[in-house]
């Protein structure tokens, strides 16, 4: 059994850990509110953008000559995966959930004999993936300096992706991120952005045709690169909200566990203190009796 002094020290150390986790939880809660707000505010833009593109692509006359970003390169051999994670740890299963999703996708690809290329965004994902897939990672981007997700950063990632596509370095591009549902639930998502999946929404197949100015092709070829940045930006916003939510619940759990531990240790401490007193009493009494 640990001595009284040891127990005292452990209680103190658990208490100070609890203070840290509590502080982190509070910081995450404050950040979460902001991140959640901006994620919700950012949704209309990407939805509208998607709608416009859907309308455009359904109106396009000859699919053969459609921009490559829409129709793909015609092949399905090289897959580029953009795995978006956070730059900081201590946020529960947030990063490992994305990685798990991505890894199962990678395994499926290699089963089918497809070639794999990876871009990691955020250092945590890079750390976890480079052990197994180190040779597949072609680029690593991190936005440690920027505090909040902003459109500039998303545009940077988008440009890299488009450049690589134009150099024919890959055929299909998928992004991995966590979709924010609520504080407790975040759903890891795999979203294909090149070629664009136009069959996803089965909503009103509006038959009223649009007038275009300039013509469809030109609009599409201008719009598609923007859409990629937009989708990436959306993923970044969702991710940052998810990260804070996940951290908040993880830290909440940690604080509660620390509290339980302190209670248990305190009971143990009191018991051994009492045992020591009882022992001393017995010694004194039996000493007096023997006289």
């Amino acid at each position: 059994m640990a001595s009284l002094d040891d127990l005292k020290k452990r209680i103190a150390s658990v208490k100070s850990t609890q203070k840290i986790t509590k502080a982190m939880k509070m910081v995450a809660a404050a950040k979460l509110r902001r991140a959640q707000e901006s994620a919700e505010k950012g949704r209309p833009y990407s939805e509208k953008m998607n709608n416009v593109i859907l309308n455009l692509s359904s109106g396009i006359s000859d699919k053969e000559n459609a921009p490559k970003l829409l129709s793909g390169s015609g092949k399905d051999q090289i897959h580029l995966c953009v795995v978006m994670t956070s730059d900081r740890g201590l946020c529960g299963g947030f990063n490992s959930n994305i990685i798990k999703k991505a890894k199962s996708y990678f395994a499926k690809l290699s089963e089918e004999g497809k070639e794999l290329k990876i871009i990691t965004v955020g250092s945590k994902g890079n750390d976890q993936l480079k052990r197994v897939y180190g040779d597949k990672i072609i680029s690593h981007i991190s936005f440690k300096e920027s505090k909040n997700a902003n459109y500039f950063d998303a545009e940077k990632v988008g440009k890299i992706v488009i450049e690589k596509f134009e150099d024919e370095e890959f055929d299909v591009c998928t992004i991995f991120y966590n979709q924010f549902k609520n504080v407790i639930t975040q759903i890891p998502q795999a979203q294909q952005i090149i070629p664009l999946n136009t069959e996803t929404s089965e909503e009103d197949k509006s038959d009223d045709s649009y007038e275009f100015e300039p013509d469809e092709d030109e609009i599409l070829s201008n719009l598609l690169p923007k859409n990629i940045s937009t989708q990436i930006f959306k993923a970044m916003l969702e991710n940052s909200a998810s990260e804070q939510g996940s951290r908040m619940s993880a830290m909440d759990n940690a604080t509660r566990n620390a509290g339980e531990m302190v209670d248990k240790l305190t009971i143990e401490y009191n018991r051994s203190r009492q045992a020591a007193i009882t022992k001393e009493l017995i010694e004194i009494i039996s000493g007096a009796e023997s006289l």
Partner: protein
Amino acid sequence: MSEEFKVEIVNPEKSFLIKEDVSEVIVPAFEGEMGILKDHISIISFLKPGIIKILSKSGDENYYVEDGIVEFKNNNLSILTSSIFNINDLDKSKQQDLLKQAEEEANKPEINDQSKYLVDQKIEVLKSLN
């Protein structure tokens, strides 16, 4: 019959402006300025740098945009843009900043014709604001 329709301006961060009682919107479309009234045919077009004028009963508003897409459908006008400023909020120093940025870009040697055209537009509009 009311002659009003709805306009919505969205940028990547948030919904920038929603107005329900608009009588006319003039946008700097790619191939020239375009005024949109109620019951316009469905249209999708690009913006070039310029001024968006929103005319409504409650007063006119002017916005400076650098790029974007307009979509008009069922009397809903959506403008998607990543760079928009209310002219009233755009003070002299901010204008100068944007102008300087644009001029720097225009002087880059590797600029292609189309972006050169856009940047020139931008400079022209910014200068006209002063």
